[in-house]
């Protein structure tokens, strides 16, 4: 895998719940059906109120986002247990969410699916960074660098190899916990 990603960031505040990440009306899409997976991605973060987030995460007519890194405040991914949420972000092209903290089920779904890296940041980056700032996330040393400033992120620890493997099933196969060949995704 690539060990760094450089991209403009998209900045959101506290309590971005799963309805804002992928509104309930789009949950009719089934993530394991390939074309519906892509479509889910095209709706990522469409539930953010326009007044608070005038710059759209995905431009009208596009199916993916130019922002591969999302910066968030507290409790990112709270609300429902819908796995559609990390999947929509991953399908849209997001590689990592860097937040003050995550809601439990969202964090777990990120790991189980391997769709995005959910990094905790000791510094409240949503107060410091602005949408469009270009950042480099270094997965080897767990840092986010923006305009010469280096922010240390909390290492992902034991869940890291699961996300690296592409989710819990791939990890379980690679480590011999379950038998069999990985299916083609």
């Amino acid at each position: 895998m690539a060990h760094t990603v450089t991209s403009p960031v998209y900045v959101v505040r506290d309590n971005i719940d799963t309805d804002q990440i992928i509104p309930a009306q789009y949950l009719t899409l089934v993530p394991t059906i390939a074309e519906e997976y892509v479509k889910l991605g095209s709706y990522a973060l469409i539930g953010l109120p326009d007044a608070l987030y005038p710059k759209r995460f995905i431009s009208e007519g596009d199916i993916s986002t130019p922002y591969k890194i999302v910066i968030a405040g507290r409790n990112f991914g709270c609300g429902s247990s819908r796995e559609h949420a990390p999947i929509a972000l991953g399908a849209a092209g997001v590689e990592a969410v860097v937040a003050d903290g995550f809601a439990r089920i969202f964090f777990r779904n990120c790991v189980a699916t391997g769709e995005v890296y959910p990094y905790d940041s000791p510094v409240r980056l949503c107060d410091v960074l602005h949408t469009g700032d270009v950042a480099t996330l270094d997965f080897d040393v767990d840092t986010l660098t923006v305009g010469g400033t280096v922010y240390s992120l909390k290492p992902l620890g034991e869940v890291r190899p699961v996300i690296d493997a592409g989710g819990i099933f791939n990890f379980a196969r690679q480590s011999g916990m379950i038998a069999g060949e990985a299916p083609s995704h």
Partner: protein
Amino acid sequence: MTLTEKVLARASGKAHVQPGDNVWVNVDVLMTHDVCGPGTIGVFKREFGQHAKVWDQSKVVIIPDHYIFTADSMSNRNVDILRSFVHEQKLPYFYDVIDDPTGEWKFDASKGQLERQYGSNYTGVCHTTLPWKGHTRPGEILFGTDSHTCMAGAFNQFATGIGNTDAGFILGTGKLLIKVPETMRFFLEGALPLGVMAKDVILHVIGEIGFDGATYRAMQWEGPGVYSLSMDDRMTIANMAIEAGGKNGIFPCDQKTLDYVNERVAENGTKSEFEPVEIDAAQVFSYDKVFDLSKLEPTVACHPDPGNRKLAKELEHIHLDRAYIGSCTGGKTSDFLAFAEVVRGKTVKIDTVGVPATTKVVRELKEILWGGQSVWQILQSAGVQLTENASCAACLGGPVDTFGRLNKPMKCISATNRNFPGRMGNKESEVFLASPYTVAASALTGRITDPRTFMS
């Protein structure tokens, strides 16, 4: 050990567990529904093979309830995906909207939203169905592909929401690796005063600890106040553990629990053996606080999150466009009876919508008579738009033709459990969470109103 630790220790075959331990637990029941079921089935087949069999047919419960009464063809298709999986796997617990096991579901929009459009097996909202149909038992482990699965913690079990991938893993193996959470104790004393309901208890507590105050933790309810609460009350409270970020909510087991569970498992012929977990003398909590129920007042969680707490009486200047009663947490028979107590003989002033959680609630509201009139009629005479089509409905917005959905920016007071932006449909709307009493009183005045105004 705390109640949660005891359930997890037993389910993982260990004498002792402590917070932070990662343990493989054996799953007693896995529940899924029409929104996450098709994806869960997709993961299961992709990972275990097209011809794989579920680990134990008697432990899988499938309840279509989210997007049922909608003309949205993908939603209708998703119910059909559940039906073919049930047929293929020969699953005994499927509460289908139609009676034909090989048929296709199609909602008939020309019949409108209010009139019954389901067969004899359909039940409605999954979390309310599980206890009714005898699938909740003390001491057990329940996972569901829905965040409000934590409602079953009312029955002295470990219950929590998971994603499709974890659910697909359970379908194949019957196991899941989980981290033992720290436990927070909420020790209840006293009894609820006039005009105050279980909903006010949980809204008060979430306001106290914050919207993420229980993240990664178990919320254990104890104390003499707990035993004064009905099972419905306990469900309302356990249901909203997730709204404080909690992993699960859990109650002790008492005679009320045993009576409720024994009656339901006998009625439905489901598994009747279970072993409750008792409260230990030695427990370690990450938080421990006493709450006096008698001091609580009607409480509201204001837009935009369930922790944004105010008292109803402080909000009487807020004008509303709609009142809504329904959902797992607020659409039980007892919730509608409380609502009816307030609106009986009066007329609502704003658009007021009622969606019973289950088909049993619909039946009971029609059977219970007050002064010769059914509660259903009493609610209708007060101007409440009631549907017979029990489901999650507008609690989570859903497809645009969902009954009660907020399709334009409006202010809505609701007996449901979540009020982040866009939750009930339109993302510029504002949702205020409150008890059925407070929702009813507010429906009568068109403003947020302390229900004690109408009670003596």
